[in-house]
C-alpha cells in the first residue's frame, strides 16, 4: 500500500488545479459553490483514507518505505530526486494533516458560504495541503524546504485574504520578514549538511552523522532550530502569528494551529538523532521553548479578542513542544503536536462558529435598519452563548478541558509527559537550568488552564451582554443561532478526538507500577521509538506519580480559580463584579493593556506587568523598529549607490579603469 504514497500528495494538487483553473476561466463555475467545496474536501479526504490504509498496513517495526518518483535535479556529483518517505513519523504527520485538514475543509464549506472568492479560498487551501504534505512526506531536505516555502506562500495568501490594502501589506510584510530570517538560517544549515555529507537525503544524512565535527553538528542544529523558530512562531520570531489571525478562522485553525506551525517540531524530531549529539543545542531549544511558553501565556491572559487569546495560546503550546524537544522528549513533543492539533483546531473552529453567529447578529441588526457596529470577536460582548449554541459550547468546553490538562482528556497525557521529560532532563547535564524550566512549565500549565477557562466562561456562560452594552442592539439575542451542520459535525469529531486522543500515549508506568509486569501500553511511544532518539526516563515510579499529582493539582486549582472569577451564573452579584471590572477598564481605555486590576490573582500581577509594559513595547518598538531599520539601511545605501550613476560617460570610464586596476592587482598579487 505504501507505494501509493504519491497519490496522497498528488490528489490535493489536482483539487487545487480543478478549482483554480475552473474558477479562473469560468464565471459560471465560481457560482457552483457546493461543487467547489465538495471537490476540495474530497481531494483531502481521499488522501486521508489512503494514509489510513498505509497506516494500518504498517507496524511499529516496519522498515521505512521510500517511493522514488523521478530524479529532479541532476548535475554531476549533485543529484536530488522527488521521493516520498513513509515511516512511523511521517505517516502520523500525514494523518494529522489530511484528517484535520479534511474536517476543516468541510467546516469551511459552511463558514465561507457567503464569500465572494469561495473558489479562490478552497484552491489556496488545497494548495496548502499539497505543500504541507511535501513538507512532511519528502525524503530529502530539498523537498522539505520546498514544502516549507510553499506553506509559507499559502499562509501569506490566506492571511491577506480578507484584508484592505494597508493592513494587508503590513501583515504580509511582517510575516514575510520574520519567516525570511528563519528560512535563511535553514538554507545555511542545508548547505552545511550538504558540504559535510554530500547529499540531502534523510537516510544518508542520518547514517553519516559521524561526518560532522561537533562544531558543525552544533551549528546545523542551531540553524535548523532558528528556521523552526520562524515557522513555528518562537521567541524572537513569534510576533507574526497573532497578526496572522486576521485571516479567515478556518485558516487559523488549519495553518496557524494544527499543521504549518508544527512543522518546526517535525523537523527537529526528524533530526533527533543529530540533536542528541549536541546537548548545548538541545539546551538552547529548551530555553527558547520554555520562555516562549510562559511569555505567550502571560500575554494571552490580557487579551479580549477570542482569536488573539487562542493565537497566544498556540504560541505558548508550541513553546511547550520545543521545551519537550530540548529535553529529549521527542515523542512527547510529537504526542503534543497530535493532541494539540485536535483540541486547538476544535477551539479555533468553535471560535469561528461564535464569530459567525456574532456576525449574523450584526448583519440582522443592520437589516432592521439600525446602525450598530461592534467587534464580533470581542468576548466582552458575548456571554451566555451556551443556550443558543449548544454544540459549539460543548465541544469548546471539552477542548478547554483537554488543553487545560484535566485528567483523562488528551492534553493531560501529552502535557504530563512533557513535564516529566523536562524534569527528567534536570537529572542530567545543566541540571539547574532544566529544573528552572520545569518550574516555568508548571507555571505555564497553570496559566494555560486559567486563561482558557476565562475565555470559555466569559463567552458561553452568564448572559448575553451585547444588548446591554451596545445601544440599538436590544433583543438582539433572538438572532443568535447554532451554526449549520457542516460546521458542527467537524466540531464534534474534533471534540471527540480531543477527549479520547490522549489514550494513544498513556504512560507505561500507569500500569507497571501496580502489576510489576513489563507491559507496554504506551502505543505512541512504541510506534515512534524506532524513528526518534528519545532520552531514557530515569525517574522512579514515586517521582513520576508526584509529577502527575502536581500536574493534576495545578490544572484543577487553575480551573477552580477561573470558575470563581469568571462564571457569571451567580446573578446580580457577579454582574456587579463584572461592572466593577469593566469600570476599571474604562479608566484606562486609551491604554488598553493597563488592565491589571481586573485580574486579582496575585501570581499573575508581576508577570502581567512584564507582558504589558516590556513585551508589548518590545514587540512594537524594538522588533518593528529593527525591521524598518534594516530595510531602511539597505534602501539608504541603494540610494547612495545609485548616484554614482551620474549619466556622464567619463565617470563610467573612470570606474571602468578603477575596475581594471582592481582586477590587475587581484590577479597579479
Amino acid at each position: 500500500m505504501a507505494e501509493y504514497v504519491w497519490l496522497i500528495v498528488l490528489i490535493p494538487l489536482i483539487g487545487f488545479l480543478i478549482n483554480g483553473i475552473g474558477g479562473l476561466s469560468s464565471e459560471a463555475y465560481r457560482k457552483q459553490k457546493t461543487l467547489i467545496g465538495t471537490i476540495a474536501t474530497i481531494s483531502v479526504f481521499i488522501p486521508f483514507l489512503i494514509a489510513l490504509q498505509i497506516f494500518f498496513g504498517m507496524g511499529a517495526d516496519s522498515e521505512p518505505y521510500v517511493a522514488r518518483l523521478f530524479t529532479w535535479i541532476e548535475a554531476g556529483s549533485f543529484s536530488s530526486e522527488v521521493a516520498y518517505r513513509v515511516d512511523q513519523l511521517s505517516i502520523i504527520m500525514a494523518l494529522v494533516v489530511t484528517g484535520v485538514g479534511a474536517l476543516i475543509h468541510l467546516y469551511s464549506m459552511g463558514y465561507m458560504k457567503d464569500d465572494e472568492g469561495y473558489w479562490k479560498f478552497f484552491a489556496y487551501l488545497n494548495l496548502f495541503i499539497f505543500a504541507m504534505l511535501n513538507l512532511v512526506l519528502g525524503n530529502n531536505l530539498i523537498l522539505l524546504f520546498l514544502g516549507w516555502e510553499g506553506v509559507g506562500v499559502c499562509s501569506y495568501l490566506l492571511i491577506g485574504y480578507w484584508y484592505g490594502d494597508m493592513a494587508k501589506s503590513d501583515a504580509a510584510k511582517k510575516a514575510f520578514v520574520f519567516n525570511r530570517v528563519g528560512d535563511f538560517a535553514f538554507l545555511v544549515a542545508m548547505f552545511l549538511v550538504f558540504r559535510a555529507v554530500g547529499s540531502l537525503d534523510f537516510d544518508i544524512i542520518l547514517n553519516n552523522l559521524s561526518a560532522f565535527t561537533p562544531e558543525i553538528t552544533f551549528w546545523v542544529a542551531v540553524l535548523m532550530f532558528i528556521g523552526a523558530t520562524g515557522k513555528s512562531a518562537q521567541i524572537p520570531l513569534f510576533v507574526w502569528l497573532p497578526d496572522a489571525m486576521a485571516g479567515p478562522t478556518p485558516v487559523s485553525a488549519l495553518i496557524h494551529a494544527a499543521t504549518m506551525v508544527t512543522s518546526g517540531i517535525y523537523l527537529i524530531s526528524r533530526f533527533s538523532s543529530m540533536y542528541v549529539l549536541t546537548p548545548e543545542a538541545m539546551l538552547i531549544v529548551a530555553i527558547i521553548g520554555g520562555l516562549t511558553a510562559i511569555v505567550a501565556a502571560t500575554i494571552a491572559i490580557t487579551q479580549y479578542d477570542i482569536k488573539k487569546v487562542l493565537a497566544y495560546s498556540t504560541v505558548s503550546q508550541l513553546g511547550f513542544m520545543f521545551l519537550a524537544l530540548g529535553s529529549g522528549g521527542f515523542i512527547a513533543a510529537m504526542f503534543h503536536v497530535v493532541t494539540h492539533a485536535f483540541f486547538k483546531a476544535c477551539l479555533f473552529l468553535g471560535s469561528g462558529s461564535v464569530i459567525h453567529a456574532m456576525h449574523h447578529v450584526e448583519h440582522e441588526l443592520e437589516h432592521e435598519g439600525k446602525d450598530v457596529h461592534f467587534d464580533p470577536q470581542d468576548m466582552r460582548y458575548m456571554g451566555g452563548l451556551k443556550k443558543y449554541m449548544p454544540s459549539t459550547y460543548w465541544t469548546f468546553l471539552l477542548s478547554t478541558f483537554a488543553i487545560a490538562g484535566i485528567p483523562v482528556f488528551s492534553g493531560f497525557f501529552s502535557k504530563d509527559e512533557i513535564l516529566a521529560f523536562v524534569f527528567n532532563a534536570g537529572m542530567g547535564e545543566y541540571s539547574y537550568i532544566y529544573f528552572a524550566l520545569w518550574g516555568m512549565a508548571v507555571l505555564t500549565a497553570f496559566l494555560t488552564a486559567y486563561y482558557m477557562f476565562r475565555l470559555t466562561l466569559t463567552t458561553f456562560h452568564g448572559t448575553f451582554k451585547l444588548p446591554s452594552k451596545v445601544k440599538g442592539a436590544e433583543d438582539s439575542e433572538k438572532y443568535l443561532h447554532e451554526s449549520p451542520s457542516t460546521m458542527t459535525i467537524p466540531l464534534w469529531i474534533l471534540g471527540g478526538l480531543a477527549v479520547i486522543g490522549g489514550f494513544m500515549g498513556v504512560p507505561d508506568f500507569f500500569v507497571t507500577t501496580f502489576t510489576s509486569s513489563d507491559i507496554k501500553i504506551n502505543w505512541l511511544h512504541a510506534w515512534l521509538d524506532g524513528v526518534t532518539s528519545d532520552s531514557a526516563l530515569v525517574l522512579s515510579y514515586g517521582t513520576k506519580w508526584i509529577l502527575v499529582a502536581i500536574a493534576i493539582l495545578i490544572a484543577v486549582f487553575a480551573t477552580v480559580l477561573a470558575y470563581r472569577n469568571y462564571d457569571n451564573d451567580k446573578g446580580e452579584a457577579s454582574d456587579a463584579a463584572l461592572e466593577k471590572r469593566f469600570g476599571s477598564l474604562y479608566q484606562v481605555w486609551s491604554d488598553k493593556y493597563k488592565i491589571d486590576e481586573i485580574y486579582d490573582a496575585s501570581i499573575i500581577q508581576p508577570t502581567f506587568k512584564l507582558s504589558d509594559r516590556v513585551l508589548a513595547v518590545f514587540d512594537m518598538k524594538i522588533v518593528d523598529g529593527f525591521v524598518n531599520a534594516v530595510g531602511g539601511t539597505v534602501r539608504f545605501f541603494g540610494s547612495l549607490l545609485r548616484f554614482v550613476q551620474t549619466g556622464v560617460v567619463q565617470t563610467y570610464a573612470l570606474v571602468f579603469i578603477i575596475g581594471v586596476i582592481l582586477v590587475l592587482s587581484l590577479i597579479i598579487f
Partner: protein
Amino acid sequence: MIGIEWYLGVSAVLFIIGVIGVLTRGNAIIIFMCVELMLSAVNITLVAFSSFMGDVHGMILVFFVLCVAAAEACVGLAIIIAIFRNNITADINKINLLRW
C-alpha cells in the same frame, strides 16, 4: 637591434595616452579617436610579438583588428551624427538624460 621591450613600451605608452584621452576629453569625436589610438597601440604589440616569434598569427590578427576598427568607426560616427541631430551638441558631459 632594438629589443622587444622597446616596442612593447611604446605600445603601452600609446595605449595609456589613449585611455587618458577617453577619460579627459569632452568631445565625442575626440574620445572616439582616442579609442582608435588604443587599438593601434595594441596593433604595435601584436606585430612586435609576431615578428619576434616568427609566427604569422599575430599579423593576421592585425588585419582583423583594422577591419573591426573600420566597422566600428562607421557605426560610431553614425551614432554621433544621430546624437548631434537630436542634441545639437557633441559634448558628452551634456548628454546625461539617462542616469541614477
